[in-house]
């Protein structure tokens, strides 16, 4: 398991820009913990794209998750 990315100046600048753009006022005491969770989130996003990119075909993403699946 990879460790979350250590906060770098660019990483922190990205985070600050995101919060500013969203119009959210983050309490200073939340910041350190949020940076750790932001790093973890970026790892999760990489996992998602890795799975999604393994599928060559187009999928119908509009159908409910219970539709179109065969289990018997």
């Amino acid at each position: 398991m990879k460790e979350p990315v250590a906060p770098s100046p660019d990483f922190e600048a990205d985070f600050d820009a995101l919060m500013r753009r969203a119009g959210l006022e983050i309490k200073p005491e939340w910041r350190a913990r949020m940076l750790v969770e932001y790093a973890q989130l970026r790892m999760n996003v990489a996992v998602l794209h890795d799975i999604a990119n393994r599928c060559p075909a187009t999928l119908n993403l509009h159908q409910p998750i219970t539709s179109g699946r065969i289990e018997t």
Partner: protein
Amino acid sequence: MSFADHSIADLGRLLRRRALSATELTRWTLEQAEATNGTLHAFISLLPERAMAEAAAADRAFASGIDLGPMQGIPYAAKDLFDAKGVATTCQSKFGLEAVADADAGVIERLTTGGAVLIGKTSTFEYALYGPDPDLAFPLARNPWNLEHYTGGSSSGSAVAIAAGLVRMGLGTDTGGSIRTPSSWCGTVGLKPTFGRVTRRGCFPLSASLDHCGPLARSVSDAAIALQVLAGHDAGDPDCHDGPVPNYLEGLERSVAGTRVGIAVPLLETASAETLAAVERTADLLRSEGAEVFEVATPDLLSFGSVVRALLIIEGYHVHEQRMRDRIEDFGPLSARRLALAPAYSAPDYLAALKARRLLAEAVSGVLRTCDVILCATTPGSAPALTQEATPFDPATPSMTNPQNVMGNPAISVPVGLDSSGLPLAVQLVGRLFDEATLLQVAHAVERLTGWQQIELPNVQRQPGQGVPA
């Protein structure tokens, strides 16, 4: 022995032969809930007027020979995410204090039609998001097995009310494990039905694509009875399934001989030694009854957890965006700082999450073509001490309950014994889409074979009640 030591089916028999009245049972339940709430904080609000009126109506129906179904006259609790007419749906939040409901939620409506008795609204995590967060409008529910350990969440109060022997059934919601985790840590049965099996109308949303409603219960048969009443189409919930509802009770006692049970090894990646031993013991007991048990390969926990995190945060933020911008300081810190990360996801990330979800669900469907149910664990171990910080999205410790929200398949947490520190341990079973009947049948066998019902509930100073039938 107390009233709550009787199963819902037993209580129903006593009520029907008038050995017990719904009024008497409800009065006792309210008294016990009141007496223990200062310690356990299971309830945000008790509803004595509504409960006594519903109990009296159930008694009148019994007296007239009217049978409204298996929940008639039975007290239950509802997580405070469900609307109850005339009562604030607080969602354990400062915002919710002003939100008085003008109608009952769909699940409460179904239970009321079936003659059940709502006694109160139970504690949760703020908006069913993250916890435990001590900095909220209401106190944390406490685990009756050990007050210094987590209850799990977010359907905490419903689990606590059952584990304390106050009610046999409580309603919960499950977006990433919120029925099953508190069930595992409080030693109750927790059933997340198939996505769409139970209506969500009148339930405050967290993540529209992941939210499920269902029962927590003292036993598998209690959960089956509750599902029988709760399941069914509701035009008020666009995702609610419009299909037949089978009889969940008739096959419950059936043998598991010949049933194929797949142990999902990748879903046990984070299990403790004691949890692994509990899963292996369960597998051996099922084999002893003639089940065919073998290992199966599923995708890993981190893949499922990454999908849940993305959908839950993005869709949850969509629900709360205006509140986050205008009054972020009125959220608890855990909810606020985790929801605030939603803008870090892009539209291509969201579509990748939806695509990954479909691929992971298809992979599980492939596994369920080779077995009837999947056996895994609900939580890595028993309830952690409150001093440990919860890190639900740490990629190093992915959740064991997230996969079933991703795939939408029914899943049930069944307590199987106590660990070395005297806290409940549970296993999890996963069924085919809309096949809760087989899932409940295997869960019932697990409950019987492990002898969970013979383990006494923790002593929280319940009073036995006058004239409790033996």
